[in-house]
């Protein structure tokens, strides 16, 4: 058995045989067409184009109506095949005596160069859409007829998949997608989510490790891939699959319920958002707003920095579709492990402790101004909150907040509408911020605890470093004390405290988080129904008692034991019921 890890981008689990796909390996030869045969060759090209367009049309017709996003992507691909420039350029080459395959290949090459020069990543990447379509036409010309070579339900493994490939793979025969390349925002991820097919992307090494026909187990939530899994793993996966199915079925029943403990403690459950495309899921899973809108995508996906208009339009769209719920926008959290191609950043020996997040924004005021203007302008369209990442002390927060105030004045003078009462929060992720949380609470409108960085900085552990990653302990007594201190400091000044790290979406931690009296928890949308149902089974006073007890313990293992002693059976029973009801 071998375990690989990628990025889980579409929830669900699957176990089945692997099917490998290697697109992009067309061979085209050049032949001379005699003048008398030219009209026939042109007709051959037209027929191949028409057949390919019809194939896409057929794919579209098989899809359920409600997948608007996928329909639109396929329609664009169909029109790309039928593009007048594509056929007229290829025709002109055929008239010079080239065969249809070679003519298409030459036209594709010209577009490859034209697209490669474009300044914007989004537009550059559209070349792939064209290339996959032209490949299909060439395949047809070469006498291949498309269709799946297999009739068995399979897990599709590939370098990357075009949107047409993704749906062309017959949803009922596709158990899951695994790609070596791709990211959370690639088309494969979006299409897989809309089709409800589990998907893991950015899984380095899968093409090398997996052979056709290998049994593979895939979890699209955790990103785990087991090659030749052992029987226990297969059993575990069928449990996960059942659990996921139950959850999906109960989703609609619980979406409108409140997250409230048996004895009346109400907790707001919100979603973390990466992309505007994910808003339908946010609503479907019953989130009461966005607790963390990560906005880095707009910066890292392109060569130049995004304009104020682009940011404004994106934020406005999210804010309007979430109304009346609030959207909490985190300002640029770039630097460190992330990379903005539009920014000239110096190489740093220790980027995690270097020029990133709020530090970078306060140094590069134009960058900060553009984003804050866009956020403030979007605040006229719904309820917007803004929070600053990596705040390490009061002076830094006040500098950022004062800068925001100046921008409000600018906008007021220019006559732009915005919410003058916009709430401004501190992300608590540096230990020094916790040490002065009482002072910060007097200046901020809310706190939001970012557990991933708080744990990394408190324990001095780089989670990405395999040598030390086992020391990354969310239940370390230091972390628990910091969370408690943050909540208490916030509540003493009457401001709400939320948590938006991965910890908030894990059932095991929920009794502690409820006991800590956090007001809001923000997590991936898929986790919300489960967390909500679990909270409804808890009693606030038991959670508080648990917190009192664990604060005296000395290590993570003791804390785990204490949680398991009180809530373990209940958690097990809850999980069992969740998928047997």
């Amino acid at each position, binding site marked *: 058995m071998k375990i690989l890890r990628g990025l889980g981008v579409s929830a669900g689990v699957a176990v089945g045989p692997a099917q490998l796909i290697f697109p992009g390996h067309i061979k085209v030869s050049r032949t001379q067409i005699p003048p008398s045969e030219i009209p026939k060759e042109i007709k051959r090209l037209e027929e191949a184009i028409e057949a390919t367009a019809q194939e896409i049309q057929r794919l579209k017709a098989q899809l359920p109506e409600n997948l608007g996003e996928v329909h*639109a*992507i396929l*329609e*664009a691909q169909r*029109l*790309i095949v039928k*593009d*007048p*420039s*594509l056929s007229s350029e290829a025709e002109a080459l055929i008239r010079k005596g080239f065969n249809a395959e070679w003519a298409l290949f030459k036209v594709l090459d010209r*577009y490859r160069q*034209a*697209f490669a020069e*474009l*300044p*914007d990543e*989004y*537009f550059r990447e*559209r070349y792939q*859409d*064209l290339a996959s379509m032209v490949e299909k036409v060439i395949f047809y010309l070469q006498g291949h007829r498309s269709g799946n070579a297999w009739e068995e339900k399979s897990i599709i493994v590939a370098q990357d998949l075009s949107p047409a490939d993704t749906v062309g793979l017959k949803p009922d025969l596709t158990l899951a997608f695994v790609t070596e390349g791709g990211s959370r925002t690639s088309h494969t991820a979006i299409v897989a989510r809309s089709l409800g097919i589990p998907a893991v992307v950015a899984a380095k090494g899968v093409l090398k490790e997996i052979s056709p026909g290998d049994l593979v187990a895939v979890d699209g939530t955790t990103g785990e891939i087991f090659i030749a899994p052992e029987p226990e793993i297969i059993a575990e996966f069928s449990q996960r699959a059942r659990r996921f199915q139950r959850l999906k079925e109960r989703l609609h029943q619980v979406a409108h319920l409140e997250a409230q403990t048996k004895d009346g403690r109400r907790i707001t459950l919100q979603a973390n958002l990466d992309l*505007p495309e994910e808003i339908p899921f946010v609503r479907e899973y019953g989130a009461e707003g966005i607790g963390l809108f990560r906005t880095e995508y*707009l910066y890292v996906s392109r060569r130049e920095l995004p*304009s104020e*208009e*682009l*940011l404004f*339009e*994106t934020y406005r*769209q999210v804010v309007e579709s979430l109304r009346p719920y609030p959207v909490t926008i985190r300002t640029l959290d770039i630097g460190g492990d992330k990379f903005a191609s539009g920014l000239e950043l110096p190489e740093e020996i220790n980027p995690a402790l270097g020029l990133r997040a709020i530090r970078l924004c306060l140094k590069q005021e134009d960058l900060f101004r553009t984003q804050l203007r866009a956020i403030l302008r979007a605040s006229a369209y719904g309820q917007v909150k803004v929070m600053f990442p990596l705040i390490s002390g009061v002076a830094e927060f006040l500098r950022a907040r004062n800068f925001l105030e100046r921008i409000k004045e600018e906008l007021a003078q220019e006559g732009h509408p915005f919410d003058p009462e916009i709430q401004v929060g501190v992300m608590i992720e540096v230990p020094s911020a916790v040490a002065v949380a009482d002072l910060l609470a007097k200046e901020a409108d809310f706190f939001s605890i970012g557990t991933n960085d708080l744990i990394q900085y408190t324990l001095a552990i780089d989670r990405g470093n395999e040598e030390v990653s086992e020391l990354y302990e969310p239940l370390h007594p230091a972390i628990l004390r910091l969370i408690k201190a943050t909540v208490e400091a916030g509540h003493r000044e009457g401001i709400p405290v939320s948590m938006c790290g991965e910890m908030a979406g894990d059932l095991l931690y929920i009794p502690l988080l409820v006991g800590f009296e956090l007001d809001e928890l923000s997590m991936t949308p898929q986790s919300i129904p489960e967390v909500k149902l679990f909270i409804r089974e808890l009693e606030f006073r038991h959670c508080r008692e648990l917190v009192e007890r664990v604060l005296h313990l000395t290590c993570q293992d003791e804390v785990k034991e204490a949680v398991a002693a009180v809530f373990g059976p209940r958690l097990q029973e809850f999980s069992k019921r969740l998928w047997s009801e």
Partner: protein
Amino acid sequence: MESKIEEEIEIRGPLGLHARPAAKLAKALAGIKAEVRLGKDERWVDARSILDVLTLAASGGTKLKVQAEGEEARKAVETVKGVLEAASV
């Protein structure tokens, strides 16, 4: 009857004039009797070709020129404006 019209339009939306609005545009213009071209920085392309429209790389905030020539030039320009103004996603 006007034979040649030119107007300016600003592209909105975070992704700009991307594949889907370009596809909508090609469909909407089908059957309209006019040559329709889009121009950016003196580069002109056929508005009915998604591929050529995409190579304009018109991101949000870009100002494009619309030029139409022929019997239904006015209708063509209004169609372009209608599609691109509605496409804010």
